[in-house]
């Protein structure tokens, strides 16, 4: 580096080669991550978009059909049903599980007996395997012998076909997913709460602020980055649910519990129609990237206070 400042005529070229070498170095360091990102993210996205414009004939040849699959999708009632279901599912699960997570986190953040046990209890649903969760809840919801109907029976109420009735099946799934997600989100809130400086609380308390006021004006705003992070995760999860549907409802009755990703799974693997599945995947992709854009382009700037 010492001859960098020297007035030797070769210095600029040296500097140039140095910069060049730095760039190569940087790219080499980035290479492993870049290869993974391209191989498992960017390439599949492009391949999916391409595939949605083609149809694979039964003999294996690909035929370009342009937007034909998209037209079929717009005319497909099950697709719209899945999309609407997904909207209600997201609306039903996200705000409640986040609110519940926050309440639980504040609750177990205090000094109290059995705190470790309570934290563990709240977190347990998250570490259970998806299929086990589905089977547990299947037992709760089974008409007549299920736990819910046994409880109803104590009050002389008749059994209810929870998962077999289109008016209750979505509610049942929402309750189950809230149970599962809230504990997971609680961990993030708990971590965030422990990062907050107690000075702020003390200062506010000296000023005579009530606990609700402290929460509303200090704690909650300071937790906003966590809330945003958790909300993004919750949205993604609400589009990711497949396992429970396979075990519990198969999307039924009459598609009342079909969500977008489950429908993609069904089209791709049960119907073996990969090009239509690609078309549906592009929709999912657009939905999720729109959300990501809103997050990075707008919300991040408003929520991080630094």
């Amino acid at each position, binding site marked *: 580096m010492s001859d960098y400042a020297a007035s030797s005529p070769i210095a600029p070229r040296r500097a140039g080669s140095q910069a060049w070498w730095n760039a190569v170095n940087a790219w080499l360091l980035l290479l492993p991550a870049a290869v993974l990102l391209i191989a498992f993210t960017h390439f599949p996205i492009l391949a999916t978009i391409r595939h949605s414009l083609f149809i694979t004939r*039964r*003999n*294996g040849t690909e035929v370009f059909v342009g937007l034909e699959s998209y037209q079929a999708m717009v005319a497909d*009632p*099950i697709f719209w049903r899945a999309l609407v279901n997904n909207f209600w599912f997201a609306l039903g699960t996200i705000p409640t599980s986040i609110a519940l997570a926050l309440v639980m986190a504040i609750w177990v953040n205090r000094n109290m007996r059995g705190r470790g046990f309570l934290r563990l209890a709240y977190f347990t649903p998250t570490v259970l395997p998806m299929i086990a969760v589905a089977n547990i809840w299947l037992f709760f919801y*089974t*008409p*007549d*012998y299920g736990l819910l109907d046994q409880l109803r029976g104590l009050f*002389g*109420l*008749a*059994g209810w*076909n929870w*998962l*077999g*009735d*289109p008016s209750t099946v979505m509610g049942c799934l929402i309750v189950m997913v809230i149970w599962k997600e809230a504990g997971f989100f609680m961990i993030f809130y708990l971590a965030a709460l422990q990062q907050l400086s107690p000075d702020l609380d003390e200062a506010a308390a000296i000023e005579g602020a009530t606990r609700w006021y402290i929460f509303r004006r200090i704690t909650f705003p300071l937790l906003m980055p966590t809330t945003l992070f958790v909300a993004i995760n919750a949205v993604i999860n609400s589009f990711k649910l497949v396992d429970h549907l396979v075990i519990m409802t*198969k999307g*039924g*009755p*009459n*598609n009342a519990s079909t969500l977008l990703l489950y429908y993609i799974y*069904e089209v791709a*693997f*049960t*119907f*073996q129609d990969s090009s239509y599945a690609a078309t549906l995947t592009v929709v999912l992709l657009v939905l999720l990237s729109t959300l990501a854009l809103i997050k990075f382009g707008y919300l991040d700037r408003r929520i991080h206070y630094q």
Partner: protein
Amino acid sequence: MLIAAALAVLSMGARPAAAVDLTMYYPVAVGGPVTKIIDDMVSRFEKDNPDIKVTAVYAGNYTDTMTKAMTAMKGGQPPQLSVLLSTDVFTLMDENAIVPIDGLVSDKAWFKEFYPAFMANGQIDGKTWSVPFQRSTIVLYWNKEAFREAGLDPEKAPASWDEMVEMSKKLVKKDGAGNTTRWGVEIPSTGYAYWMLQALAIENGQKMMNEPGNEVYLTAPKTVAALEYWVDLSRKHNVAPAGSIDWATLRTDFLEGKTAMMWHTTGNLTAVKDAAKFQFGVAMLPAKERRGSPTGGGNFYIFKSASPEQQKAAVKFIQWMTSPERAAEWSMKTGYVAVSSAAYKTPAMQEYAKGFPQATVARDQLEHAVPELSVHENGRIYKFVGDAVQAAVTGAQKPQEALAAAQQQADRVLRAYK
């Protein structure tokens, strides 16, 4: 040369000279320890044929197994043979996945041993694409004690649709609060709803599909009437629970006395027999215009990608599994219909049927049976029909409109195969 010889010797030491590895996927759609029965049969086959090694993989229900097989094929690791729905044949042919089995056997007389009703689904364009294995028809199970309690003849099952409604009304039991504790009859509407609807349509004198497998008749007045009857059981006569009835838990409902009668596959027979704490009967399905049930269940398929040796070994395995003694054993252990009349003539089966006459009802019903709904893209068509049935039984749509929607979607999918 030396190295090659050494390698050959080494590899011979590791395994029998001409060992052939086979992977088979198979489904379980009924109760009972079916995987154990299969594993046991496979290990006995391997003992008889040390040069063939069979890996039997349980792959879920029929739909899951088909999904697994097709996904494995597209991933380049297909099984060499599988038990799949007999009705998957068009899809498997369309995907170029299977080979006709008649090209692999020298003695064509073998095919004549099977019941023709079971061969019907697998024979297309004069070729035999699959061989029957776990075949069934839908039968009516009834709880004799419930019949006695309701003042009905415990030895007589309903013979007609009207009779089934009349008897069911007597069989419904309510508790003090007016809640139903026992239903008259339950027909499952998840899993294989198309199958149950087809049974009702056949009884009403209506075919559900054409031979080339590119048309379905969902809006035919008699198909609509069949679904209306089904829906009326709960909505008009109040003898069946409202909402959809789950295929997998229906057996438990019957065993717990929550329903006095159920329509289910004969494949469940042994599981019911082993678990029932009451006397029960098995009957052919009741008639409207005629008696009838679709055949159902799984066939053996051999995959095209298997090597010639593997295909030959697969045939050997299939012949072993479907031989009269094994077919009889399989039937006794599960309740599935044995695939050949020779199986029913074996001493073991005759002895069994003497003590348990219910074991032959499904076979006797074959006389009235019709091939199961089998068309191109059957996975999709089954979903459309299943959705329509569920829309109707849950009251979301009238049978007529639900089936009209399904027909429209089916027509769109099947257009490509005309």
